[in-house]
């Protein structure tokens, strides 16, 4: 059974149909890169999987459970699927450690010392154990993004959604974040990531999904997608990057 089963998903913003019937099955432990032009609906798809947008048609199953728009099932979903954003979205009024602790304590009622121990472990995992007390504005973009990853990991999700998590970073800082993601992949985390880092997609991902105008236009192992693109759109896209 796939971990995430996306079936015939459609999404409209007013007149504008942004997702025109998406089908993707994600197996446990799979690492998938989603690529495509700006506006092709990549972010919208991830946001639908995380319940940040309601879908108009189709269905999304996560670990067998239906995604319904009521608060209880949304919460259940989000405990299973974490999300990391392009703009980090750390909570600026909390230290790095507190950022990681907050949702455990609030959502799962984890006692403070357990949450703190977990936060230290997760910050260590992204190489930031020593910045536990630093505030977001004292961290570089790369460090902030790693804290965001630690924050998502602390909820012990079964899958992570990553939306261009290195696009807002200075070029020097991209590598440190990708290294963390690579390690997660190696540890068997299920990852669904929108990315422009083609080299990274080639090296790390098991499957690449090329989206075009709200549809999955082509998909397959990175060798095929990058080495032998079937459609002119993908050829053009790969040629450019």
């Amino acid at each position, binding site marked *: 059974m796939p971990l995430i089963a996306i079936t015939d998903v459609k999404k409209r913003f007013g007149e504008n149909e942004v997702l025109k019937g998406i089908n993707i099955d994600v197996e446990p432990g799979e690492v998938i890169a989603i690529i495509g032009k700006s506006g092709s609906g990549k972010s919208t798809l991830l*946001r639908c999987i*995380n*319940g*940040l947008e309601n879908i108009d048609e189709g269905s999304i199953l996560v670990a067998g459970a239906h995604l319904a728009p009521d*608060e209880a099932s*949304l*919460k259940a979903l*989000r*405990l299973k699927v*974490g*999300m990391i*954003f392009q*703009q980090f*979205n*750390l*909570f*600026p*009024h909390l230290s790095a450690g507190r950022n990681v602790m*907050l*949702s455990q304590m*609030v*959502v799962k009622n984890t006692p403070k010392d357990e949450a703190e121990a977990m936060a230290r472990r997760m910050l260590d995992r992204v190489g930031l154990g020593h910045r536990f007390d630093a505030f977001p*504005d004292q961290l570089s973009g790369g460090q902030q993004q790693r804290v*965001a990853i630690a*924050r*998502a990991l602390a*909820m012990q999700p079964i899958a992570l959604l990553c939306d261009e998590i290195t696009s807002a970073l200075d070029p020097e800082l991209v590598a440190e974040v990708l290294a963390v993601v690579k390690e997660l992949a190696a540890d068997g985390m299920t990852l669904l990531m929108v990315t422009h880092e083609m080299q990274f997609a080639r090296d790390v991902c098991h499957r690449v999904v090329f989206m075009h105008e709200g549809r999955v236009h082509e998909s397959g192992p990175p060798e095929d997608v990058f080495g032998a693109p079937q459609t002119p759109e993908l050829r053009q896209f790969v040629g450019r990057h």
Partner: protein
Amino acid sequence: MMEFTTWDILRNLLLAARWTVLLSLVSFVGGAIVGLAVLFVRIGHRRWARRCAEGYVELFQGTPLLMQLFLAFFGLGLLGFDVPAWLAAGLALILWSAAFLAEIWRGCVEAIQRGQWEASASLGMGYLQQMRWVILPQALRIAVPPTVGFSMQVVKGTALTSIIGFVELSKAGTMVTNATFQPFTVYGLVALIYFVLCWPLSKSSQILERKLNAPHRHH
């Protein structure tokens, strides 16, 4: 007619100013609590509740406070509720300031980036948890200056409670003037006392604003 010395005038005005201060405190604190509740409803998920909160704000921001006080005191009396003046004054002032504070704070909450809502949602937090732990702590920072600024309006707004029999600063001023025929001395002193009450609020609001803005200056 009795003779008022300047000291008599000042003494009576200061005594009356105690009411001004007390009423201001009640209406500000009560208004903050009710305003917070209105805010939660106003930006919440339930559409009909949002509409109600909107209507509430429209009603209390769109009618003179004087009329609100009058109808709260005498209107309730007419309906058979014999509310004491302090209760009616407190009630009307609280509802009035709640409407304004809710609007002020809504602006502050809406100034928080959408990413904060989304990040906290994606961590599994519910609406109240998001508000309590993520949004309000940040909104509070930007909310302090306009909130303190509004407290000046509350101080001045209490003047209208004279319609339901409160002898606060403004009313005392009128009464003393009627007994002394010295409008300039009396109103001068009244203005001075208001200034002394309000100016620290306005000043601290400016200082807070400057403090909060300082780290955001970018080049």
